[in-house]
């Protein structure tokens, strides 16, 4: 390793996933050194987990924080800088994976990332500081005339030419699905560029977390993305637990792991059914629609809610299992196993399905790397990244789930990835249920440590879910940052659509199946 790389490494504060650190131990770099540290870390093979603004301790300044992951060393690293004035030099041209983070900083704190190639708002809300990066009037977010701040506004990247046409879809879509706006630049059926404009689901989650922990905190976490209730609630609880030095029992961690993998099973099997539906292969579409319900009912057997509401609670879990319930769950997993094999294996042996899956919506490995793609979408493009393996916390420190990868990067890759993960999750759930450790289901969570910093990452079914919290001198949240996998992966979908037929959009979209509310917060 060259001295320069060593230098950049020492400039960062390293720590582990889910362990709080003294806020003062995070080095304050000058803005140029901060940017260089990120560029160097990414060049070394690390990746950006979060880049966000926060109130600086110094007056008239805004702090920027970065959390980087060193997946080979199973370590996270943090650094911060303070920006005085209204702008900073954009890092996006040198490090594309931060492009949305910088747009978010611009929107939330009114700082302009100078040189950002496509600086538009992310969620279309008023700035938190009263200073607007686009010079708009404060307090008039969505009024007529405030076109730029209204969702879907702000202008789109356009292709010019006689044969070029533009297709606009949404925010209200044809199915029972969340709202978002898609703008395609097409030449005939061929998509040259897709721009995705979101923000319609913005409910103000991060802002509402400030000053917490509040009574509603766990409910915000459970509804950041309803289909990812377990992963987000687990990250939220890990934040509280690490900041209060709460020791969870092995039993509660096993139950969290089981819940997380059930969430993955339900969504993966549902997605495979929906992918079958999108290519008109109805047998698997029909079977998987029902089988997904069977898994949701298993989660409801744990906690009464098909989406895991009430299962993950600070200090442990809300519900325990006795041997009778374990036996029932094991039987239900066996039935699921049999049904899922019969339904899903039809896909891989049906030429009309494979013809539509293979070679469609390819996201090349390098693009996935550059864009910072996470989860099954990254693994389907050959990137071996999985929080359960690389940054293990909770039960995953003891029970390893090896990351599977596929090299093709196409719809088939993302579909087959899910099938591989279904196998791993079933194995994990069975192992955990059969060897359930003893212990209480919940231990009390105390007051949060003041002036601390923590990042809690979990591998949700879509990919990495990251919650970062900073506490003030009274142990209250002075910043709470949430990064859903969708925040990273929508750019991957847009990229994968280039050069595709527009009629393949639903198929490509479903192969990523990203969250709108998880992005919009």
């Amino acid at each position, binding site marked *: 390793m060259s001295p320069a790389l060593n230098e950049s490494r020492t400039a960062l504060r390293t720590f582990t996933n889910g362990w709080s650190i003294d806020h003062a131990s995070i080095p304050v770099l000058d803005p140029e050194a901060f940017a260089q540290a990120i560029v160097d870390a990414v060049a070394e093979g690390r990746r950006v987990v979060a880049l966000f603004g926060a109130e600086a301790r110094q007056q008239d300044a805004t702090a920027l924080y970065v959390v980087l992951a060193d997946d080979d060393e199973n370590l996270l690293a943090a650094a911060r800088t303070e920006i005085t004035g209204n702008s900073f030099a954009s890092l996006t041209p040198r490090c594309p994976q931060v492009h949305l983070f910088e747009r978010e900083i611009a929107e939330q704190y009114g700082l302009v990332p100078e040189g950002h190639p496509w600086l538009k708002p992310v969620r279309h809300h008023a700035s938190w500081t009263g200073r607007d990066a686009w010079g708009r009037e404060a307090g008039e977010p969505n009024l007529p005339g405030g076109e730029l701040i209204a969702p879907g506004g702000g202008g789109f990247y356009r292709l010019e030419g006689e044969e070029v046409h533009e297709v606009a879809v949404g925010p209200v879509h044809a*199915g*029972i699905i969340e*709202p978002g706006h898609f703008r395609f630049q097409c030449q005939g059926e061929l998509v040259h560029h897709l721009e995705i404009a979101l923000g*319609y689901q913005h409910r103000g989650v991060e*802002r509402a977390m400030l000053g917490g922990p509040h009574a509603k905190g766990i409910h915000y976490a459970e509804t950041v993305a*309803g289909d990812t209730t377990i992963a987000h609630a687990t990250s939220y609880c890990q934040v509280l637990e690490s900041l209060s030095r709460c020791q969870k029992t092995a039993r509660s961690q096993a139950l969290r792991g089981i819940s997380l993998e059930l969430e993955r099973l339900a969504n993966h099997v549902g997605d495979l059914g929906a992918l079958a539906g999108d290519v008109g292969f109805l047998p698997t579409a029909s079977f998987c*629609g029902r089988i997904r319900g069977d898994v949701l009912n298993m989660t409801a057997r744990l906690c009464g809610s098909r989406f895991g509401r009430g299962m993950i609670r600070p200090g442990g879990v809300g519900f325990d299992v006795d041997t009778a319930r374990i036996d029932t769950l094991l039987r239900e997993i066996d039935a699921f196993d049999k049904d899922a094999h019969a339904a899903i294996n039809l896909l891989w042996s049906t030429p009309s399905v494979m013809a539509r899956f293979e070679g469609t919506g390819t996201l090349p490995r390098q693009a996935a790397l550059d864009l910072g793609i996470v989860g099954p979408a990254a693994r389907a493009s050959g990137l071996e990244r999985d929080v359960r393996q690389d940054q293990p916390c909770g039960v995953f420190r003891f029970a390893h789930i090896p990351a599977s990868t596929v090299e093709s990067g196409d719809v088939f890759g993302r579909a087959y990835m899910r099938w591989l993960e279904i196998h791993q999750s079933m194995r994990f759930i069975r192992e955990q249920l059969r060897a359930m450790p003893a212990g209480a289901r919940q231990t009390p969570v105390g007051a949060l440590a003041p002036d601390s910093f923590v990042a809690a990452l979990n591998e949700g079914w879509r990919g990495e879910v990251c919650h970062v919290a900073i506490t003030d001198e009274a142990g209250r949240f002075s910043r709470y940052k949430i990064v859903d996998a969708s925040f990273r992966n929508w750019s991957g979908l847009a990229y994968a659509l280039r050069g595709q037929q527009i009629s393949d959009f639903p198929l490509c979209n479903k192969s990523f199946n990203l969250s709108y509310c998880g992005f919009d917060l």
Partner: protein
Amino acid sequence: MLKILKARLQQGHRTIRYPDGPPPAVPDRLRGAPVIDAGKCAATSAAASAATSAATLEGNCRACVDACPTGAVSLENGLSLDLGRCLFCAQCAGACPTGALVFTQEHRLAARRRGDLLVGQGRAVRLAGALEPRLLGLFGRSLKLRQVSAGGCNACEADVNVLGTVGWDLGRFGIQFVAAPRHADGLLITGPVTQNMRLALEKTYAAVPEPKIVIAVGACAIAGGPYIGHAEALDGAGALLPVDLFIPGCPPHPLTILDGLLRLLGRVS
């Protein structure tokens, strides 16, 4: 082809028999309709207060009210719970030292009027009745709905969607979700109605031909859910549109949603 037929045989016929047969079993830990026994409430009943320890603050017990994240529980005019605001987290029941408030497995929760969702002593949810005769004549055997998620977290949406699977087969009741508001008889709304979805929801509603109905599914669409009071949202669909059916839950169980829809169409009572 043979493989497909074999898989089809293995999967079998899975559509529930309800409402002709009994409804499918709900999970034993389901938090359904709450029941209030004011006689046990230490805050409103002197006898219950005397019978419990000092932990209940001698008649000033507010444990349930303090435990509720959305302000659904009230002690004014006796202990009551507004199911429109309720997330069914049951933290109130868990906090109650005397068991005055318990959640049952009862899945039927849908009501026609907002006020009918208030549960109190001797007062259960006033379950929804059918549409008025003229609308029932129009929609009773064919109801086309346009779904709009306006800040929903995708849990309500998912359990509305599940009604379309072979297990529930919503189509057998003539109920169908359609792609265009022009083809719809009404809207089914989820989410607290974010400021950023307000215009889209208004336009979608305007595009539905008269007469039309509105169904609010989930705590968010009824009263804002966890997002109640947020400047970024409107505390539910009722702030913008007249609502004909409220289906509480976070999210409601599919059986609760189906029950609500069938009640509206006079298929169950």
